[in-house]
């Protein structure tokens, strides 16, 4: 007789995973669970940036950039340490959308995955400065400390085979908290 799993309380990790699945479902259902919650991006911009970030770090056995919270990272920093990059994002994302409508007649978010790859490849050639910026910030968000909103649940560190928290038993801090500088 199988154990009655319902009576076993979820561990924190299981709870986090369950929550992630829940919000992923919400994402599919209504496009985004974050509508109106961005500090810097408009909803359209966030969808365009999602396309860029997820081509830079696509999903495989491990989450894509946006699934790991990279947009949250970039959005927060554009109101903090990266304020100076605000115009670059505003113009770069608009350019990306123009490029998409010119070539495919549609916004990036509704293109098929192969079209999205084609679009991002074209952007990397046409606007290398903006693409490099997004690429750098995507890597930071994905591989950097979870405290800044990306690398959700330290997923990239676990992907690389690193323990998280780093030294067990010695974590004085909640890695996901703390001032996002």
């Amino acid at each position, binding site marked *: 007789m199988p154990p009655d799993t319902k009576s076993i309380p979820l561990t924190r990790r299981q709870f986090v995973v369950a929550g992630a699945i829940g919000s992923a479902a919400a994402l599919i259902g209504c496009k985004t669970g974050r509508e109106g919650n961005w500090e810097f991006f408009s909803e359209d911009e966030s969808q365009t940036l999602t396309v860029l970030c997820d*081509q*830079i*770090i*696509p999903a*495989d056995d*491990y989450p894509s950039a946006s699934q790991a919270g990279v947009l949250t990272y970039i959005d927060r*920093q554009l109101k*903090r*340490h990266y304020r100076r990059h605000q115009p670059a994002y505003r113009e770069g994302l608009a350019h990306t959308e123009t490029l998409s409508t010119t070539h495919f007649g549609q916004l990036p978010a509704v293109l098929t995955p192969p079209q999205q790859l084609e679009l991002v490849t074209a952007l*990397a050639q046409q606007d290398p400065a903006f693409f490099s910026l997004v*690429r*750098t910030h*995507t*890597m*930071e968000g994905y*591989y*950097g*400390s979870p*405290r*800044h909103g990306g690398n959700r649940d330290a997923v*990239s*560190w676990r*992907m*690389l*085979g*690193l*323990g998280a928290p*780093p*030294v067990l038993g*010695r974590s*004085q*801090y909640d*890695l996901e908290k*703390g001032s996002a*500088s």
Partner: protein
Amino acid sequence: MKRVNAVIVGAGAAGGIVAKQLSTAGLSVVLLERGKWYTANDCRKDDLRNQRTTVLGNAFGPEDEGNPRVIVDANNVPRIILPSEGGYQNNAACVGGGTLSYGAMAWRYMPQDFRMKSTYGAPEGSSLEDWPISYDDLEPYYDKAEYEIGVSGDYSGTPFHGPRSRPLPMPPLPANREFQILEPAAKRLGLHPFHIPMARNSVPYNGRGPCMRCRFCVGFACEVDAKNGSQNTVLPTALATGNCELRIESFAQQVLTDDRGRATGVAYIDANGHLQQQPADIVIVSACAIESARLLLNSKSRLYPSGLGNRYDQVGRNLQGHHYTGAVGYFNFDTYDDVGPGASIAVADYNHGTPGLHGGGAICNEFIRLPIQMVDRLPANTPRWGLAHKQAMRANYKRTIAVMGPTQQIPSADARVTLDPSVTDKWGTPAARISGNVHPHTFDIGLVQAKRAEAWLKEAGAVGTAINAGRPTIVSSGQHQAGTCRMGTDPKASVVDRTCRLHDVDNVFVIDSSVHVTNGGFNPALTIMAVAYFASQSLASNWKGTGFRS
């Protein structure tokens, strides 16, 4: 404000030692530090905001706002640089200075490093020179630094070092996996690998525990306070004497002088933004090479129209650091065990003695790597983005070893710190302007060193390698910055004498890496400390209570 015997500018590697030596000798001391006082609790493990990876800012100062510098590139175009940008050549601004967050390699320079010109001759266009003091002069003070600050390691594997009066006070940390892979390979090549000396507790020492070997090491404050810097060794001792007052967030703007040309104290901006004057019998400048030069140049007066100690246009010249080169090796087995500090093994066989080369440097395995640092260190044919990049991260993260080394730079008088004519900090103080480059022979040496690193990795089983040996067009000084107030006997060709006293002003001293004539083929921290003990010793022993013995 009450007059004190000595005011010291900068609570870093040198300033902390000078404060301790003078205050325990009975002098009253005020120690000014422009940065904050952090503790082990400020480690924060933030790999995007520490002192090494600064994409979201410097963890230990200075802040990006109000602290600009100007870098003049090879085409003579000046550009304003913020402290968290690479070109700023930042060290740190905090109690402990660089020693709060450094990797803590604690080398002695070799005897030849103090007489580079005698050993090799000065290449044309260089300012290569001998130190006015020798390794033997410094040996007792190297020893003192190793024991008071606390150094672990083991020199017994290498014959390439100067005479030592005794072994290091602490044994090395147990070998990590990279050490175990690289050691036999080095021996097969006929080299002499050894444990890197580190200002890090490997066993309980000085009342603090040993290293817990975590990933958050170089660039971070040590969470368990096992990394030894001035903030947890000499400074507490200085403060405990009751003779030393530490004033943090206090930025020294100018050394004040009287009509006879002697220093009377220091003008500084306190933590509340108020201009203060601290009168003192002697002034010691220990603000690190770029800021020490800037402070002297900003200390203009009727008698010193071009800045203090700058009668012969020497202050700020000969800026140098190290030219880092090496190689990354890619392996088909796991090489990385995530056991800090990571850097563990070195060879010093290549520091001197290669025909045709004016020196060389140590070659060591690199510090532990944060995932974000791996992003651009993948094999050369890896795409920069996309699934292939992500998979390459996974495949290579634990299967690379980086072997690098600080090639000793051949200094040039053109590599220098001046004051920018228009850019100022938030207090209106003219900003440092950095221009010029070290002598190009430096880069020839660096390339040879990189190939040696590559050969070592191949011998260790690397299936692929990538050489890292650039020819930077701007002087690269950074955390190892040195040379701007050269120590020497000729007042026309140097700034301070062998006791670190300005040739020009008999009660002003520069005690930090600024006085290094050359910067060795090793990380400079222990030499900065040894020179600080050496200079403090002569300062304290000549002090009569109100002035100096003549």
